[in-house]
């Protein structure tokens, strides 16, 4: 049994009362004295040459305080890509400058080229309409295949063929992989699209710039998943101001899913505008701006081939992918389709030979970057679809085919042919658990019941793995990362014994304030209610890398453990002094310091108080205070894994797919708060079902976003989804972090899309539509129905 409020308890979320009573404090809820309002003027064309921008009339409009255009920011630095990728031939990727605001050219619909600041938002918006921008529209580069094939048409004039990089992983394995394919008894080939998604955190991006002319300090309130990274990028790369003169505060943030990892130009623009007018400048995106300018996700076109022998043993796997990066490189845009995608192409399988080729392509569309799962959903979808297709071609049961090829538990640690070392896992266990809890045995009966209603029932599965806990700095440094990927925590024991923990991770729905306090309570033996978790303010927290890639617990949680180890070590010194016992004889257990072999004992609170009232301390050997900081850099990625089953009912008259049930059996390592973990899986699965059935960000041939509102972009709603069955009782603790935690935030979004599509294809095959090998996501009624008519 978990300790009350400790690790493993389903502690209720302490964040919730403020959110449930309307007291959450999100960026848009903040009003500063003297606040002004910004409106960004955005390109209406996908590609255009800016000839001139005349702001004279606009500046004379009522209430207007400042108008700045891209030219005003031209001397500033660019917003850099976080990873430098090398192409197969050894050349370095192309990295065009991404300015604060566009100048010279606009490169996607929604590309901001001017900021208007006024006393009211309406005045700013009205003035924006009076700006005369002379922009010559140029042909738009939208389709990736055409972008690569047509050298005349360029998103960036200096980049031929619009190719950012042409990456091979692992290039040295290519010949062996090709040879295996030549010799293979059976090859299954599949071409598929991983549909482009708009992340759609329910809170649109927002930023308030607040420059203090008295001190020269800048303050930025912004919707960020990683305030320190934003500060570093803005200060050091973009604006060229001292890092210590900028405070970035990400208060309550309403969901991110990747889209709020990145620094965006609007943040620098409101800071610069605030300095220019010496008043706070607030910008809140409307939903249309979110669709047009938030970094989108996925958007891969992939050819995948799987070589098998007659028994279904996987011999080799090979992929070729075009990955859209949009008009500019967003911060994680280059790592997402490469090291977060190609390195996962072994999946949970023993496939001995794997080769991945990815060409990243610039287009006149919004930047594309990491979205929940980031590369790993793309990898999993490709693998799990081709495995299913192979099973059909060979006449094998897709469940059995997977089981034959899964890495077995005696094979760990297991090094894959794509460069990862899986430390631990038990993929058969999660598959067995799935078979049990999804009542696979009862499927035929349910299918018969569906048939009575005139519905086609199908069953699909996926067995998936991901790499989380991003990431070992030494490794990522070798692979081109421009940052380290440790995290940090400061544990401050206050004089009265309660504890403030300042963390580098950022909570925007994950429940860190609750779970991190559970960890502290468990480790230090203090009530969780006496622990406060502080995050999101660079003036308070140590330099950590924020929250994404299911890393908060595995990396920041481990930093907390390290810091608490130091607290305990210091506490032992203090206790030794107070109890007049040798330090080596002091034990710490469940909140008390004890001298071995005696009944002398001090509570944690007594030691804390003494640390701050050190009246008789031997100051040469014992320092007052009880506060420690630790940085934790992971030794490896963590590898959550699991198996998902989906049952669908297809209406043969309309092609409409209904999710009848969705079941997840996951191994997340040691679980801190089961209630929160279930919620994370639910949310991920909902996004995955959204990708599989509903969502797609669609551009027309001119680069106009057709799905730019909730009337056109189909988000999963309450009546689209069932209740979910989730289980995380199969546990193989991570072997290299002190919590044994692997991370759970992205799992649902990674494992679910192929399970849904496999289920639909299964339903159609069972109904005799055996010619349907594949339907691209989203599986809308129109696509499914059309496939059935062929």
């Amino acid at each position, binding site marked *: 049994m978990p300790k009350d409020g400790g690790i493993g308890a389903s502690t209720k979320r302490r964040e*919730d009362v403020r959110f449930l009573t*309307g007291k959450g404090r999100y960026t848009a809820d903040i009003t500063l004295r003297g606040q002004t309002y910004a409106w960004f003027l955005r390109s209406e064309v996908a590609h255009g040459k800016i000839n001139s921008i005349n702001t004279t009339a606009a500046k004379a409009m009522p209430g207007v305080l400042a108008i700045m255009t891209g030219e005003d920011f031209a001397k500033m630095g660019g917003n850099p890509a976080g990873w430098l990728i090398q192409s197969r031939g050894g050349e370095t990727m192309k990295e065009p400058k991404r300015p604060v605001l566009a100048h010279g050219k606009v490169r996607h619909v929604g590309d901001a080229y001017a900021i208007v600041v006024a006393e009211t938002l309406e005045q700013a918006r009205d003035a924006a309409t009076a700006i005369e921008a002379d922009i010559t529209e140029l042909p738009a580069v939208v389709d990736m295949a055409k972008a690569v094939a047509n050298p005349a048409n360029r998103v960036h004039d200096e980049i031929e063929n619009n190719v950012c990089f042409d990456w091979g992983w692992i290039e040295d394995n290519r010949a062996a992989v090709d040879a295996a394919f030549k010799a293979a008894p059976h090859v299954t080939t599949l071409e598929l699209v991983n549909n482009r998604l708009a992340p759609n955190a329910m*809170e649109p991006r927002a930023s308030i710039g607040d420059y203090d002319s008295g001190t020269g300090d800048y303050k930025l309130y912004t919707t960020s998943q990683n305030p320190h990274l934003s500060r570093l990028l803005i200060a050091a790369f973009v604006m060229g101001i001292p890092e210590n003169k900028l405070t970035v505060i990400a208060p309550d943030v309403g969901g991110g899913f990747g889209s709020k990892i990145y620094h965006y130009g609007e943040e620098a623009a409101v800071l610069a505008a605030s300095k220019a007018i010496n008043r706070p400048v607030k910008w809140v995106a409307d939903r249309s701006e979110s669709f047009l300018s938030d970094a989108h996700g996925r958007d891969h076109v992939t050819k995948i081939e799987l070589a098998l022998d007659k028994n279904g043993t996987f011999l080799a796997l090979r992929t070729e992918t075009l990955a859209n990066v949009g008009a500019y490189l967003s911060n994680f845009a280059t790592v997402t389709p490469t090291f977060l995608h190609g390195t996962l192409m072994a999946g949970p399988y023993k496939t001995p030979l794997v080769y991945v080729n990815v060409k990243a392509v610039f287009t006149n569309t919004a930047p594309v970057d990491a979205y929940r799962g980031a590369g790993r959903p793309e990898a999993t979808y490709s693998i799990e679809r081709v495995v299913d297709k192979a099973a059909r071609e060979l006449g094998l049961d897709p469940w059995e085919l997977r089981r034959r090829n899964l890495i077995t538990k005696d094979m760990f640690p297991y090094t894959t042919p794509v460069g990862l070392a899986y430390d631990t896992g038990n993929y058969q266990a999660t598959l067995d658990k799935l078979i049990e809890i999804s009542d696979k045995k009862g499927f035929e009966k349910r299918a018969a019941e569906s048939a009575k209603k005139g519905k086609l029932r199908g069953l699909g599965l996926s067995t998936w793995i991901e790499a989380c806990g991003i990431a070992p700095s030494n490794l990522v440094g070798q692979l081109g990362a421009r940052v380290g990927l440790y995290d940090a925590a400061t544990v401050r024991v206050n004089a009265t014994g309660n504890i403030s923990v300042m963390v580098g991770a950022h909570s925007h729905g994950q429940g860190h304030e609750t779970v991190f306090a559970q960890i502290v309570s468990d480790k230090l033996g203090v009530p969780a209610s006496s622990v406060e978790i502080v995050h999101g303010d660079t003036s308070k927290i140590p330099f950590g890398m924020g929250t994404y890639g299911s890393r908060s617990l595995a990396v920041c949680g481990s930093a907390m453990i390290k810091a608490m180890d130091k607290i305990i070590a210091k506490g032992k010194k203090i206790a030794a002094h107070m109890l007049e016992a040798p330090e080596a004889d002091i034990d710490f257990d469940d909140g008390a310091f004890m001298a071995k072999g005696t009944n002398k004992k001090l509570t944690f609170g007594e030691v804390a108080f003494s640390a701050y009232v050190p009246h008789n301390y031997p100051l040469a050997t014992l320092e007052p205070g009880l506060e420690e900081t630790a940085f934790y850099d992971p030794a490896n990625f963590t590898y959550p894994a699991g198996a998902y089953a989906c049952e669908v009912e297809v209406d043969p008259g309309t092609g409409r797919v209904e999710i009848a049930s969705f079941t997840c059996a996951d191994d997340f390592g040691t679980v801190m708060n089961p209630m929160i973990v*279930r919620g994370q899986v*639910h949310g991920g699965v*909902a996004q995955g079902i959204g990708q599989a059935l509903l969502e797609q960000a669609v551009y027309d041939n001119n680069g106009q976003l057709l799905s730019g509102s909730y009337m056109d972009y189909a988000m999963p709603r309450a009546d689209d989804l069932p209740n979910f069955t989730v289980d995380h009782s199969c546990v193989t603790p991570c072997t290299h972090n002190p919590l044994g935690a692997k991370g759970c935030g992205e799992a649902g979004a990674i494992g679910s899309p192929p399970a849904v599509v496999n289920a639909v294809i299964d339903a159609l095959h069972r109904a005799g539509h055996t010619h349907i090998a594949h339907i691209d996501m989203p599986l809308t009624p129109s696509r499914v129905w059309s496939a059935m008519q062929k």
Partner: protein
Amino acid sequence: MSKITVSATVNGDAADFVCDATETLLDVLRDRLGLTGAKEGCGTGDCGACSVILNDRLVCACLVLGAEAQGAKIETVEGLANGETLHPLQRKFIEHAALQCGVCTPGFLVAAKSLIDHNPDPTEEQVRYWLAGNLCRCTGYDKIVRAVLDAAAEMREANHAA
């Protein structure tokens, strides 16, 4: 542009405010009355984050003009709890962990209250259809639906006991 003077009742209290003719009820609540619980998730009535109850009817405050609130009775998330005592919906949302980032939550609570006001004994399907006007990107709705059903059951029991 001349301003409009409006008198309404918000969460049981008299609220007088002055607004522009073009100002939405959502802007009035957030910017003039300091009630920032209702959120703007889309501004087009598609996400329900700004849900409030206007004269016993569930509306998107972004689609109502402030001036239309003259004489109206408005309920927002801020009025759900009775002092420190949470509304059963709020308690059940905590018990089920039916929220994550919290942005859509005020809208869901208000929409769910409106549902239970109209139909104290909804089925799961009725809850899902009623709440289909509210978008949540975090939870997948599972726990929200369970929390609403649970709260409705508890409220029925309390009414029965009374």
